[in-house]
């Protein structure tokens, strides 16, 4: 068996207690910004069983009028990231040009006319989806010609 010096034991004990303290503090009062000690809040929000389930989507219209949903594969931007930064797009819709450019790099042959962020709300009844949904446009940007 290997041996451990007294300072070695003490240092490990202190590091353990310190890290545990930071983690508990992060859970009680921290946010995602405090990574890696932030709260483990994936799926921690309670959703009402009768409120619709909403998701943010990036919707685009091509110059031929076709409407397409821009997925992560199309733009490299993940849905959760769009949702994390919705406020930024509503505050300044011209920021959507970032996503339009990202799309353009991957699909140089498709010309987009508009790019929008929509909130799609799936209807729930008693905690179960009814199958219908409503879309609301929260930010829209006209792609310059």
């Amino acid at each position, binding site marked *: *068996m290997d041996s451990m010096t007294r300072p070695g034991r003490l240092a490990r004990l202190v590091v353990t207690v310190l890290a545990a303290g930071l983690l508990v503090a992060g859970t009680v009062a921290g946010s995602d910004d405090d990574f890696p000690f932030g709260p483990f809040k994936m799926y*921690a929000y309670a959703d009402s069983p009768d409120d619709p389930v909403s998701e943010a989507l990036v919707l685009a219209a091509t110059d031929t009028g076709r409407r397409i949903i821009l997925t992560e594969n199309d733009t490299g931007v993940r849905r959760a990231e769009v949702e994390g930064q919705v406020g930024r797009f509503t505050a300044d819709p011209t920021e959507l040009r970032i996503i339009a450019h990202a799309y353009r790099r991957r699909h140089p042959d498709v010309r987009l006319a508009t790019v929008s962020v929509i909130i799609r709300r799936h209807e729930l009844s008693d905690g179960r989806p009814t199958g219908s949904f409503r879309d609301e446009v929260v930010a829209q940007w006209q792609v310059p010609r």
Partner: protein
Amino acid sequence: MRRVTEWLMPPVPLGRVAALRTCVYLFVIADITIFTGWVRNRTAVPPELYEPLRIGRILPLPAPTAAVVTTVFWVLLVSALVAATGRAPRLLGWTVAALYLEWLVIVFSYGKVDHDRFALLVALLTLPTVGRARHGDSTRSVRGGWSLRVTQLAVVATYFLAAWAKLRYGGIEWLTGATLTRAVVRRGAEWTELLTDVPGLLIAAQFGIVAFELASPLVFVLRKRARYVAISGFYLFHLVTFAAISISFLPHQVAMLSFLPIERVRPVRWLRRRVAGGRARSGQRDAAPEPDSAPSPLGS
């Protein structure tokens, strides 16, 4: 005090440390090439979406330009590959830990932070302190014991504090809310429609999840056999979650190997024996020494 340190630093076989190292470093490679490989394309696209986390603002980390990400990627890839063999455990171990942390800061600075890597990070940050460990070595080590123990603690903390976070953000209504329904609607597999069809099923599952998370620390008071059963239960939970809403929690699952006697699984030795056995049968003598316990040339 003495009992606390003894519990925190129990003697464990060095072979287990070696096995966990191999798994953890191989996962790092899989993570940066497959699961979070998108970051490499990201830099070419919208750097404006990068908003560094606090740790990225405190530490003098460079902005993730294409050059930075490419450098981190390749150095991390090569270091992790060599580290997985057990060579230069301190030098390479610290290199991988630091660069992987930097990688995660980049990955999580685009508006979404995942919570499945805490225990893996703890393993990465403590494994270098153990020093050299060979596969199959049954020598006991208390340094190894500390690394494995704090990784286990991190695994359980992830569960227990996740329950706490549900109480903080969702309140007690979380239990009877529509969180799982929402997850299933947004990212459920085809078959999960069956789940929303049964009234009350997902609510029951929510009670089950919180009960499991709150009870998870009990794994430390269970005896060997019962503990392994409990850990199998943890793995089963992630399997079901993955089948339903394709959330794998894979990095967490890799760290959870710290609970198991993984030193007994020796695929490399098994494979070499098969090959050697085949040769012996065909009339050739194989005088190769015990293969994967060969001393590492670089040491530590």
